[in-house]
């Protein structure tokens, strides 16, 4: 573990990514405490440009709502959707991939055909259809993002398990009569985890983008403010009021960038060959 943090902190991109992520999470956690008012409240005159009033530093939107408050509350929704849907995708994808890789044969065929079925449908289109059918709400959005993002996890885990399956220590475990579940959980998965962690950090970024795109198209949860919603709602007035779109857009950009940097840092840190050589 110590080794891991050491190499993680050695890579500059990982450090920058971590800083951004910690900042974003603390904004999401503590920001709403500083802004007790609902971000939907109309507080000032509409279309107030940014940096004119200290009470609303980033200006107001078409209804006179505080853009800054919206961004802070939006961080909560965007990060929550990103983290939870990635978690759900992992919960679905890892077991499927592990079983497919470990048991092979017909189980593998069946599970992989099932996975491919999801992979052949363009993921964003599928997400739109799912949200539209289920009625937009935070639950349907998390569900549909998870549903379109687990197949890569399953395929990745399957590949790792396939190669680990033939290692001596696994075969030794088989010979000593360990149960399949034990072998998968204790012997194989821990060793297959590092690429999954890297993938997961990128998936969070993708999920944030997906949620933003859905909200942009008006398929967000109408009761929750999110960055994508703010961009979508401000898009039509961009010629009169650029700030409504630009600030939440930049927030999306930075947080997705941060997560990608973390992914890169993790990749370096978790790759034993790279870290030992010290680059």
């Amino acid at each position, binding site marked *: 573990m110590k080794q891991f943090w050491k190499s993680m902190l050695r890579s500059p991109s990982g450090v920058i990514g971590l800083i951004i992520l910690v900042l974003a999470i603390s904004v999401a956690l503590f920001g709403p405490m500083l802004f007790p008012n609902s971000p939907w409240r109309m507080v000032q005159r509409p279309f107030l440009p940014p940096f004119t009033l200290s009470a609303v530093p980033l200006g107001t939107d078409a209804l006179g709502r505080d853009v800054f408050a919206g961004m802070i509350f939006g961080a909560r929704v965007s990060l929550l959707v990103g983290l939870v849907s990635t978690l759900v995708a992992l919960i679905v994808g890892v077991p499927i991939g592990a079983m497919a890789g470990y048991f092979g044969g017909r189980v593998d065929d069946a599970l992989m055909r099932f996975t491919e079925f999801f992979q052949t449908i363009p993921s964003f289109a599928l997400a739109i259809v799912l949200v539209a059918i289920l009625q937009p709400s935070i639950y349907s959005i998390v569900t549909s993002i998870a549903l379109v993002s687990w197949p890569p996890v399953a395929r990745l885990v399957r590949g790792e398990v396939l190669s680990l399956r033939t290692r001596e220590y696994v075969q030794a475990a088989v010979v000593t009569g360990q149960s399949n579940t034990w072998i998968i959980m204790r012997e194989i998965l821990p060793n297959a985890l590092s690429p999954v962690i890297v993938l997961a950090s990128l998936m969070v970024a993708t999920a944030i983008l997906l949620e933003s795109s859905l909200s942009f198209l008006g398929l967000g949860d109408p*009761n929750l403010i999110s960055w994508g919603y703010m961009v979508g709602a401000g898009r*039509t007035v961009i010629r009169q009021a650029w700030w409504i779109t630009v600030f939440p857009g930049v927030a999306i950009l930075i947080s997705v960038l941060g997560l990608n940097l973390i992914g890169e840092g993790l990749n370096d840190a978790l790759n034993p060959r790279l870290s030992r050589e010290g680059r």
Partner: protein
Amino acid sequence: MPKRVLLGLLLACGLTAPTLAQEPKTGGVINAVIQPEPPGLMLAMVQNGPVQMVSGNIFEGLLRYSPKLEPQPELAESWSVSEDAKTYTFKLRKGVTWHDGKPFTAADVLFSVEMLKQTHARARNNLAQVDKVEAPDDYTVVFTLKQPFGPFLGIFEVGSMPMVPKHLYEGTDWKTNPYNNAPVGTGPFMFREWQKGSFIRLVKNPNYHEKGKPYLDEIYWQIIPDAAARSVAYETGKVDVLPGGSVENFDVPRLSKLKDTCVTGAGWEFFSPLAWLWLNNRQGPLADKRVRQAIMYAIDRDFAKDVIWNGLGKVATGPSASTIKYYTDDVKKYPYDPAKAKALLKEAGYKGEKIRLLPLAYGETWQRWGEAVKQNLQDVGMNIETIATDVAGGNQKIGDWDYDIAFTYLYQYGDPALGVGRNYISSAIAKGQMFNNVEGYSNPEIDKLFADGAVATPDSKRKEIYEKAQKILVEDVPVAWMLELQFPTIMRCKVKNLITTGIGVNDGFKDAWLDK
């Protein structure tokens, strides 16, 4: 009189001022936006807004209506009403021909009445009081009513009762008649071409029965699906006329400031769209009158008008728009008063039960309005959950009474008997249908007042009845009236005389001309 001033711009444009000084010039082509693309053009079969807008210039009704909703001659050149107000005799204009050259006669009127009763829901309602229709000769039509019906002279507008060519429709399957796709009317413009998704082209009717009219050679109705692209099309000069509702409200001030641009809110008097919130009177907290009144106090309707509608329109005072006959503002007033709303909610014993709000999926303006109303109601302590839905899904939910609060707006057609009563009388409660009494309000006194009002004579008696009905309704708040909407028409100032009637662009191209 509707308030026709839009940000003071109108004054500079002189559109509503008479342009008598100028002699109309002949010739020219106009490009107008049509939004959304109409599902068809056969006005007797489909009556969506865009259909009426295009086809109102192809077809004609017996009468036309001034901005004050006074009947004017169109296909009927004169009319008379019998002493007992039960017989209406129309003298038809002579020498009128259909676009294919066949003459228009009383037989066409009789046929149209029969056909519309089957294809046009509103016409069927409007004609319910008609006992029989007869044609003593080719140019006379006599309507005999079962009992006097006050608003009868108000039902002959082209969208409400378009005249259909008998020789092309009689004995055919109306739904599959090939002329549905290439409509033949008597109007000033003839259908020429429809490139789906691109444009609809109408050309001048050279044999139009009013000599010298129309002045324009052609009209192109441009179909542009994206709101921002429609604004740009006007800015770049691709289109000259943006009919009401075709660009987002926040673009109106910017477009209005462009050079040589005229804006008017006129031309919607006949429809007088009124926006309100359906309140489900049947169940939950909203069954309590005090909660419904609290909603009226809680919502800042001036904010909605000034911010969401950019100052267009007027705060509604009750079930009738101020342009509708017998309107009165001598009713209970509901100013923005959150404190009073809170007090009423407390009195009614509201304890934070969840209330579902259905916004109208008609674009940005309506979405923002939904958000503002939600915030208003939350501010007085109501627990509101917005339900996201599309137009069809929303219609279904409202028709099935599966909602608590829902946005809508309806046309009122000039007379309380035609466009107001249907939303409050208990006989109009019918599950599965929209635009009737979907709130489930039931009050025998109101039922009786609207039943009496439709057939009462003389006018002063009707006035008394409808004023009483308005007072009762505003006290009971069966629905929460929001705004009298105004849809500004934006056009180049060189387009003259486009809006001269109570339905504006819908039948306005007959008189329109281009000052080149």
